[in-house]
């Protein structure tokens, strides 16, 4: 038996070693270091639940403070490195190898640790890609996850931020790994079972509730008139043009402006029910006015958003909620919805090159990808037809057998703050790859997946470009007064405009004179609270009252 069950035998030994630390499945918070030392073996692959929003912060801190003489050379697999503790494990010599997806807040320190030789990076992934590897060659031996509540049998209630928990626990539990949970509270009966208790080995009540980042909240007061103009162009020139109903929005003020223009500008164009009805999206506060105006039929979420709990609970026809009434999110499934179930992805970026490759990488920061490349790529395995998908496919006119295309829109002002041009001859990603020893330049969205580039100067439809030269001039033709834009071939750009490859605001009937903040359905956080009927409860840092 043991010849075919080495994993099970090893697991039993770990549980046995830890038995004196636990009472049943429950472990006291003061014994967490002992528990981890008994369960984790040097060289283990360990998954810390670090999501986009929810963080297993207590367990991450405990892991980072283990004695490196006893626990060392761990291989950390983790979707998001958000907290200092996530890098302390490497700094202190507990772990030495990392496979991950996103490290936004820790990107600069990660780059420094990498160059000092404190860790080796296996690869930087998209979320779905990393989750896929949890079930192939990167299955965790021990997972440290977090939940809102647990009962004594280990049944978990994750609350609205289920996020990655099901994927991590399933990969670990069903391959004889050990699952350790930090819960905000231990209760007699959880409000709903998000993770069954027999998949869970140990539960510790965290001394403080786990950290959640309100990552998707954008204050409407900071939306500029240029962003209003670009949002008008997006709605009229792309959403209405293709009849896009199923979509995902990237994070940021550009897309928040679109959300806030749906019930005003979108309504004035008669688009309610015709565009933006089905979403793969976190519960963005900026979407509240559109939901209230009857634009939105359904929203499936990767994670929740702080302050949106009561609003979501009161709109069960729109959001996916449990019998207990609270949101059920799931990052892997929402990523799948974005990849296969949506006809459009639209998001911002930092740099675009002459081939349309789009990157958020900057020198000295290894920020990774998150989910955008899953949503912002053509799903070549897709087989069901919808009108926007078919039309994009016809425009691409690849010849041969008919097929559709996902609309992938990159929305960017030609200059970012401090007059940094968004259009460049060569992406910083190249230099970052060289300096950090990465095998590939970290490109967020490859040029051959991008279908439209939208700037304040116009929309370039790359589907209609018939060769590399046209593509380059179409990009230069919306690159404004950046060096890339100023170096355009004016005759060719004029020609592309005549063919509808480039469209200026006036070509699609958008009047920049009415692009003012008055068009926003909410102009402040307080307006969002008001639009929600008082149900939305913004985090303190977003409150000025």
């Amino acid at each position, binding site marked *: 038996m043991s010849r075919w069950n080495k994993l099970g035998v090893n697991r039993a030994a770990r549980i046995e070693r830890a038995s004196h630390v636990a009472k049943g499945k429950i472990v006291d918070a003061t014994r967490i270091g002992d528990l981890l030392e008994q369960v984790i073996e040097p060289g283990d692959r360990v998954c810390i639940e670090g999501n986009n929003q929810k963080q297993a912060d207590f367990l991450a801190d405990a892991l980072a403070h283990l004695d490196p003489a006893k626990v060392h050379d761990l291989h950390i697999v983790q979707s998001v490195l958000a907290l200092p503790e996530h890098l302390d494990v490497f700094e202190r010599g507990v772990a030495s190898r990392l496979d991950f997806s996103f490290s936004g807040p820790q990107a600069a320190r990660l780059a420094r640790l990498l160059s000092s030789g404190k860790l080796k990076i296996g690869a930087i992934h998209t979320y779905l890609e990393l989750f896929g590897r949890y079930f192939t060659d990167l299955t965790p031996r021990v997972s440290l996850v977090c939940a809102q509540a647990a009962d004594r049998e280990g049944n978990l209630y994750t609350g609205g931020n289920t996020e990655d928990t099901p994927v991590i626990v399933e990969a670990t539990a069903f391959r004889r790994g050990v699952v350790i949970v930090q819960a905000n509270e231990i209760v007699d009966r959880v409000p709903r079972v998000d993770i069954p208790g027999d998949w869970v080995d140990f539960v510790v009540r965290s001394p403080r509730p786990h950290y959640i980042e309100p990552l998707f909240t954008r204050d409407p007061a900071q939306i*500029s*008139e*240029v962003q209003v*103009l670009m949002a008008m162009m997006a709605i009229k020139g792309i959403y209405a043009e293709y009849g896009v109903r199923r979509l995902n929005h990237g994070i940021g003020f550009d897309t928040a402006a679109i959300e806030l223009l749906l019930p005003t500008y979108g309504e004035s164009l008669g688009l309610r029910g015709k565009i933006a009805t089905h979403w793969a999206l976190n519960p963005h506060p900026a979407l509240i006015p559109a939901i209230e105006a009857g634009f939105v039929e359904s929203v499936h979420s990767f994670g929740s958003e702080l302050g949106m709990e009561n609003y979501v609970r009161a709109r069960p026809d729109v959001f996916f909620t449990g019998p207990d009434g609270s949101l059920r999110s799931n990052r892997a499934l929402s990523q799948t919805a974005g990849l296969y179930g949506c006809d459009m992805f639209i998001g911002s970026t930092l740099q675009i090159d002459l081939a349309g490759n789009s990157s958020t990488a900057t020198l000295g920061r290894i920020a990774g990808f998150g989910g955008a490349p899953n949503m912002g790529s053509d799903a070549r395995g897709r087989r069901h037809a919808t009108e926007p998908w078919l039309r994009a496919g016809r425009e691409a006119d690849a010849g041969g057998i008919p097929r559709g295309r996902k609309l992938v829109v990159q929305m960017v*002002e*030609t*200059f970012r*703050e401090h*007059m940094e041009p968004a259009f460049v001859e060569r992406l910083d990603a190249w230099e970052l790859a060289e300096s950090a020893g990465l095998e590939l330049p970290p490109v967020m969205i490859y040029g051959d997946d991008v279908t439209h580039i939208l*700037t*304040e*100067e116009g929309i370039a439809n790359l589907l209609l470009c018939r060769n590399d030269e046209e593509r380059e001039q179409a990009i230069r033709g919306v690159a*404004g*007064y950046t060096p890339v834009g*100023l170096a355009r071939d004016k005759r060719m750009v004029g020609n592309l405009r005549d063919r509808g490859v480039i469209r200026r605001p006036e070509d699609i009937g958008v009047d*920049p*004179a009415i*692009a003012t903040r008055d068009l926003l359905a909410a102009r402040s956080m307080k307006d969002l609270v008001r639009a929600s009927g008082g149900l939305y409860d913004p985090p303190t840092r977003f409150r000025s009252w």
Partner: protein
Amino acid sequence: MERLSYEFPGGNPIPTANSAVLIGVLGSGNLEVLVESASLGGACRIEIETAAFGFGRIWEAVLTDIFDQWRVGDVRISINDAGATPAVVSLRLNQALQAFAGKKP
């Protein structure tokens, strides 16, 4: 602080009765634009005070495009800039000129 000045000859004079227009705010990343009638022999003079140094070439490109679009003469435009991007500059100038001329270009 950098001062820049450009003059574009050959525009169509706007009647001097047009009252001056002031648009925008002097907040970070934004600008104030004052458009007023002036006897300049049919020229359009644009004077800029900007917080950002070394962007003369971009200002010239933006203003040349604006003038080509509007071709207004006997007009003085004063710009007080707090680091606005070209996108904001174009938007504001178009709004100001539309208000001053009472029509689109």
